[in-house]
């Protein structure tokens, strides 16, 4: 019944939860779509260009032995050799009356290298500029034409376009005009495509250091180490020039420049570790394409490296970006934290730019071949930095609130402990009280109770000679003993014996019996910390019985009590109390019975034995014509429980 009622509730909650997460998913997808649209819009914005009157558009292209007329921008097929560059020849007019102004040739974009000659004199070779040799950078070039080269009227302009690698060559429009008119446009592009990447690389270097420190301090979070590796790799490759000639390090730098798949692999691994928590079994596969490229870079030739980078590396980067987007999206839905949302948006931007670049490389999209993936990667760097800072700040807040919560928790635990301790103490006290009550009842029953009953019985007989007084006195004596035994004597039996001596003397005085009290060893008896009141009562009652026997049955005139500590072979002290009288004694039967004694005295002896046994003490009875000697040897350790009491 309750189960049936509970199930729809549970299902309802689940449905509500799934509806909520579905709505969050839709929101997230809409946001990413918006980002894509904004990115496309931004990428479609044409870059500002110098006035078109300085444009040189009409060229004659000599390529592969063929010659044709082209209008820039123009693509040429890719080739593996640099020996036969495509040659673009054209002309521009240098108007009269411009002698004061320097003129320049401005090339906004080209792949991969250009050599510019004016009037057959080379004024620019981009291959000498390391930044310009990286096809993934959109490095512009500008060169001032020496005034002496310029002629009035038409001037000859030749551009050799060097192409390496698998992607096709590209030459954007070329401007020739006054330097002051062209340079601002060059500076603008150079800022965007040269300076800004350096800034971001510096930022990436800082991130690498921060993450490496973080990983060193928190070895159990390998995610930071992986991301630090990605950052470090990114920084190193950004500052390496494309190897154009054979040098000892060219292989290595080729490997590093082609490290983007490895870098993206590291970033993906970071995301898996950071958001997915569990490292999948097939996780190492992430690094296979990157490592493959490394191997190719180390052992293959340059062309193979470039080709494999384009055909293996670039799709890998794209695939990883896609996986990254999925992982981060899942994390956004699950965690709903700022860090994953930022990273998600950044990934979308990079992915959009990657698609843009791919379309550009494949010449599907007719644009001016501006590669933006590297640049957009900085969005991810910013997101990582922001996410890290956000996490750090949140961790600090958590530490603060944790400290506060700890204080509260500790106080609560303390209170609880105190309460339970008080309860436990109360329980222990109650238990001790109950035990004490039981013991007291037993002690009173043993002595006082019996004596009072005896008094009642005697008084009912109405016999004047009945020993009521004696019974009553015994009852009082026992009452004093019980009260006395409850006092804490700190394990020193001598203190109990001191009181007993007083009572014994009071008891013996009317009978005119002398009590010879001797403490043989100076300290008397050893101290027993485990001594309990019930032990004391048993021992004192035992001594009382011995005394009573001497007074009532032995007709003794003198009773000697000696107290000593016997030292046995092992050096342990053992207390010993001896009660000796000079009475007539009694004979002990072989079975330990006492045939010559009255029933009462026999019971007294039995009681003495049982009391000694309950305390773990040794009782030695010697009786003869010269008197009786009761020797009580105390145990080394008094027993904890009164087992013999039954």
């Amino acid at each position, binding site marked *: 019944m309750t189960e049936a009622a509970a199930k729809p509730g549970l299902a309802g909650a689940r449905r509500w939860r799934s509806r909520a997460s579905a709505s969050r998913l839709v929101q997230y997808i809409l946001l990413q779509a918006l980002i894509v649209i904004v990115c496309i819009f931004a990428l479609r914005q044409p870059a500002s260009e110098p006035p078109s009157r300085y444009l040189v558009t009409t060229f004659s292209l000599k390529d592969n032995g063929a010659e044709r007329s082209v209008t820039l921008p123009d693509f040429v097929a890719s080739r593996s050799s640099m020996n036969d560059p495509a040659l673009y020849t054209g002309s521009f007019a240098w108007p009269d009356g411009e002698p004061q102004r320097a003129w320049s040739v401005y090339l906004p974009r080209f792949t991969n290298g250009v050599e510019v000659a004016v009037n057959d004199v080379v004024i620019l070779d981009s291959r000498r500029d390391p930044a310009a040799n990286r096809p993934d950078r959109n490095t512009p070039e500008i060169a001032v034409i020496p005034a002496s080269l310029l002629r009035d009227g038409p001037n000859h302009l030749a551009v050799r376009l060097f192409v390496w690698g698998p992607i096709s060559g590209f030459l954007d429009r070329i401007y020739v005009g006054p330097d002051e008119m062209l340079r601002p446009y060059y500076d603008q592009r150079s800022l965007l495509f040269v300076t800004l990447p350096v800034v971001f690389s510096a930022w990436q270097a800082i991130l690498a250091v921060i993450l490496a420190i973080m990983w060193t301090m928190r070895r159990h979070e390998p995610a930071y180490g992986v991301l630090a590796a990605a950052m470090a790799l990114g920084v190193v490759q950004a500052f390496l020039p494309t190897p154009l000639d054979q040098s000892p390090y060219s292989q290595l730098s080729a490997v590093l420049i082609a490290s983007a798949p490895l870098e993206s692999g590291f970033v993906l691994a970071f995301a898996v570790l950071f958001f997915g928590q569990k490292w999948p079994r097939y996780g190492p596969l992430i690094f296979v394409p990157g490592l493959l490229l490394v191997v190719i870079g180390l052992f293959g030739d340059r062309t193979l490296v470039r080709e494999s980078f384009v055909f293996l590396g670039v799709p890998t980067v794209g695939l990883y970006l896609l996986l990254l987007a999925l992982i981060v999206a899942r994390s956004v839905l699950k965690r709903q934290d700022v860090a994953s949302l930022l990273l998600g948006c950044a990934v979308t931007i990079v992915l959009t730019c990657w698609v843009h670049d791919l379309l550009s490389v494949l010449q599907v999209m007719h644009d001016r071949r501006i590669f933006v993936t590297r640049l957009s990667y900085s969005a991810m760097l910013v997101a990582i930095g922001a996410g890290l800072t956000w996490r750090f700040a949140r961790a600090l807040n958590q530490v603060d609130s944790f400290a506060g919560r700890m204080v509260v928790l500790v106080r609560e635990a303390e209170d609880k402990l105190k309460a339970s301790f008080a309860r436990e103490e109360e329980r222990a006290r109650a238990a001790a009280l109950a035990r004490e009550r039981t013991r007291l009842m037993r002690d009173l029953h043993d002595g006082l109770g019996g004596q009072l009953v005896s008094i009642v019985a005697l008084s009912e007989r109405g016999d004047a000679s009945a020993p009521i007084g004696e019974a009553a006195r015994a009852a009082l004596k026992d*009452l004093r003993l019980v009260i006395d035994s409850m006092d804490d004597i700190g394990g020193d039996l001598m203190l109990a014996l*001191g*009181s007993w001596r007083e009572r014994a003397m009071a008891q013996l005085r009317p009978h005119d019996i002398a009590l010879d009290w001797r403490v043989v060893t100076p300290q008397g008896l050893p101290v027993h910390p485990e001594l309990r009141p019930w032990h004391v009562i048993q021992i004192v009652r035992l001594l009382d019985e011995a005394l009573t026997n001497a007074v009532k049955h032995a007709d003794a005139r003198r009773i000697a009590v000696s107290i000593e500590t016997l030292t046995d072979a092992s050096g342990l002290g053992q207390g010993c109390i001896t009660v000796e009288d000079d009475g007539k004694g009694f004979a002990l039967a072989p079975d330990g019975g006492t045939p010559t004694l009255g029933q009462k005295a026999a019971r007294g002896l039995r009681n003495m034995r049982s009391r000694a046994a309950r305390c773990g003490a040794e009782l030695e009875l010697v009786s003869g014509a010269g008197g009786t000697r009761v020797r009580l040897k105390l145990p080394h350790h008094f027993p904890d429980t009164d087992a013999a009491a039954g």
Partner: protein
Amino acid sequence: MTVLSDERPSQAITVLLVEDDAPTSWRLQDALAKAGFQVTAAATLAEARACLTGSGPRVLLTDLQLPDGHGVELIRETRERFPDTEIMVISILGDEESVISAITVGATGYLLKDAFPTDIAATVHELVAGHSPISASIARFIVRRTQNNPERASGPPLNTAKLTPREIDILWGIAKGFSYAEIAGHLGMSRQTVPGHIKSIYRKLEVHTRGEAVFEALQQGLIRL
């Protein structure tokens, strides 16, 4: 009020006996009268006060639980008005609760109600001679108070700060059942001086100031008895 005016010499020792239980009172009166004491008996606090109007008795023997009040009040009043009167408390058990509380207001001894007549007379004689009786359990109680943390100790409050090490040694001896002679032998003193030491111990344990917190606590503790 019963006055036993036997033909006794005028220098006979006067004893004021305050005990509400008639048989016990008779018994004690008999024992004391036979020994030659001049006994005046009272059964209540009011009767006892009436007896104290003139000059004080040589000895005051009082029970603590009286029908119209507590014996401690009587002891304190007597101690204030007649400093020379020897005061003894009559106790059934001789327990520290009653004896110590009586000592702190000025009593210098105690007497068990069931003591043998000869012992009763002997104890009072000794008291008059300046020998205060003390039991092993009372000595033990006082000695333990000199050692223990007073907050943890049970029973009536007791200030043992004034006791000398020698007096504490004597108390230890008594607590362990040694006789006066044995104690004197151990401590290198004359046997006769031991009872004087005990009286001095009692005097030191007395609380003199009415306003003392100890006294107030004692009063409250006794009211609850």
